[in-house]
């Protein structure tokens, strides 16, 4: 957060804006929300398209089944609730009625990770990427800012099949444009030759800040935004690693099951490379301010810098 002039908005508002535009463009798009319309920024859609908005009450399991039914009949349902209630709470409903049944449902999940803040660990899910990426055929996307979240929301309506779209609560710097997003296509944020940092979600910004600091130490860090964790952009990842020969992964998620885990799998098969992972290490979160929490749990800018130094030392 070193640049005070950069505009900040929450990624969930990017979702709300994208959903509203989709509503205008595509009459098959419908939205379901489990009593969190304001939190998910779905109000504009609800007000403009009341017949296509379904208030589900506090009943997420039914919401997932309803979404599967709407998709069966040809609609493109977007479900909205917190990431915890979008995944862990309803895993079996998603597995059977949506993933195995290959329904065109878009699972849209806000308040993911530690940056949810003061509500604490009950709500700070750090396992959702892992849960969702394990499901056969599920696309998993974790955009990094408002613009990318808006673009991703609109892009997934054009893709047929189940998608998990993960975003968050805090106001966060805006540093991408809406045109640069393509499902499954890694986004080069910064060139560098000594180390490649693969980052997703809010941690992309931290990685860019880390790269700036590393430059002052004479280290040239490449930053690549992996917004789509599944399917992974294998080619872009391998191309980058061939030249830098060491890797940092950064994400607001458990180390087990996250982006770093997917990248390690890819590299161990194709191009064994030292990897340092910036992620939560087998722990639940707690109450606090988003930035305090990222620092305490090892996801701050300083942690990305230290991970880059360790990765380079292992080359």
């Amino acid at each position, binding site marked *: 957060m070193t640049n005070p002039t950069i505009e900040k908005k929450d990624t969930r508002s990017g979702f709300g804006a994208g959903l509203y535009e989709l509503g205008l463009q595509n009459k098959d798009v419908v939205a379901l929300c489990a009593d969190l319309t304001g939190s998910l920024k779905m109000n504009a859609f609800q007000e403009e398209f009341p017949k296509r908005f379904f208030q*589900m009450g506090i009943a997420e399991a039914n919401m997932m089944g309803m979404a599967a039914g709407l998709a069966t009949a*040809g609609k493109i349902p977007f479900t909205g609730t917190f990431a915890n209630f979008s995944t862990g709470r309803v895993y079996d409903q998603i597995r059977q009625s949506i993933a195995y049944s290959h329904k065109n449902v878009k699972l849209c999940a806000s308040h993911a990770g530690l940056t949810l803040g003061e509500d604490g660990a009950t709500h700070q899910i750090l396992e959702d990427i892992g849960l969702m990426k394990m499901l056969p055929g599920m696309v998993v996307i974790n955009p990094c800012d408002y613009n990318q979240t808006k673009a991703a929301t609109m892009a997934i309506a054009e893709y047929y099949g189940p998608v998990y779209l993960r975003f968050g609560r805090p106001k966060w710097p805006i540093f991408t444009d809406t045109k640069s997003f393509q499902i499954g296509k890694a986004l080069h944020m910064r060139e560098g030759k000594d180390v490649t940092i693969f980052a997703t979600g809010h941690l992309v910004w931290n990685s860019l800040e880390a790269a700036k600091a590393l430059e002052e130490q004479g280290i040239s860090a490449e930053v690549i935004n992996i917004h789509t964790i599944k399917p992974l952009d294998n080619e872009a990842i391998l191309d980058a690693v061939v030249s830098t020969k060491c890797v940092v992964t950064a994400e607001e998620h458990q180390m087990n099951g996250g982006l770093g885990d997917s990248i390690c799998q890819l590299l161990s098969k194709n191009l064994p490379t030292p990897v340092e992972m910036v992620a939560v290490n087998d722990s639940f979160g707690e109450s606090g301010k988003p930035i305090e929490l990222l620092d305490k749990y090892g996801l701050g800018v300083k942690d990305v810098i230290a991970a880059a130094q360790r990765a380079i030392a292992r080359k």
Partner: protein
Amino acid sequence: MKKTSSELKNQVNQTRRDIVRMVHEVQSGHPGGSLGCAEFFTVLFQNILRHNSDEFNMSANNEDVFILSNGHISPVYYSALAHSGYFNVSELNTFRKLNTRLQGHPTTHEGLPGVRIASGSLGQGLSVAAGISQAKKLDNDNKLVYVLMGDGELQEGQIWEAVMYAAHNKLDNIIATVDVNGRQIDGDTKDIMGFTELKSKFEAFNWNVISMDGNDIDDVQETLYKAGMLSGNGKPICILMQTEMGNGVDFMMGSHKWHGIPPNDEQLASALVQNPSTIGDY
């Protein structure tokens, strides 16, 4: 072309033969609940559903839909689908075998015509039906959404989320049948998790509730017609269908034990003698 009562009875007999032969062949599957629902499936698929089984259309626009929530009674479902033209009856012989479209529990994954959702993990079908119901209302499609659940299955909490939703949103194009056979895997439902008085429970949620004898083919037909007439009146419709698990095969009746075990050769022979061939085996 509607089937006559005697044609329906012949079909029920054939479906019972299909069920026991299918589970015997692979020595696995669920004959008890399947047999108890043979009349219901036969009447529904032969005489009630307004559907196009020649050209299966997943989205079911302008067609009635049937969702099986208690997917373990797949044998009776597959027999009903085959005999109403969704696929060739000879395919029943592949039930539960490697590379089959007739998986142990129904799925869309292998592309079997007639199946619109996977089921097996219980409690999810009514929610799916609610979604299809909402889509039909959005599209001004006045066809109906039928769903079958087991009585034991009502122990799943998601069912009651959907019961609540359907009533609140006046999903009066849903006809949800509960197979009240009083049995579940570990014993009788009244002993496992006794919650009697289903009628008052559904009525308390503001559903329209009717009852039928699920093993009386004429009552099934009359009640399903009646349910159709009750649709469009602001309330979802629940049919409490009393059945006997294992109906039509004497040694499978009167107990929960035949929920999920296959007959041996001798038992198969006995079941087939009790249900002589009518329209020919697959």
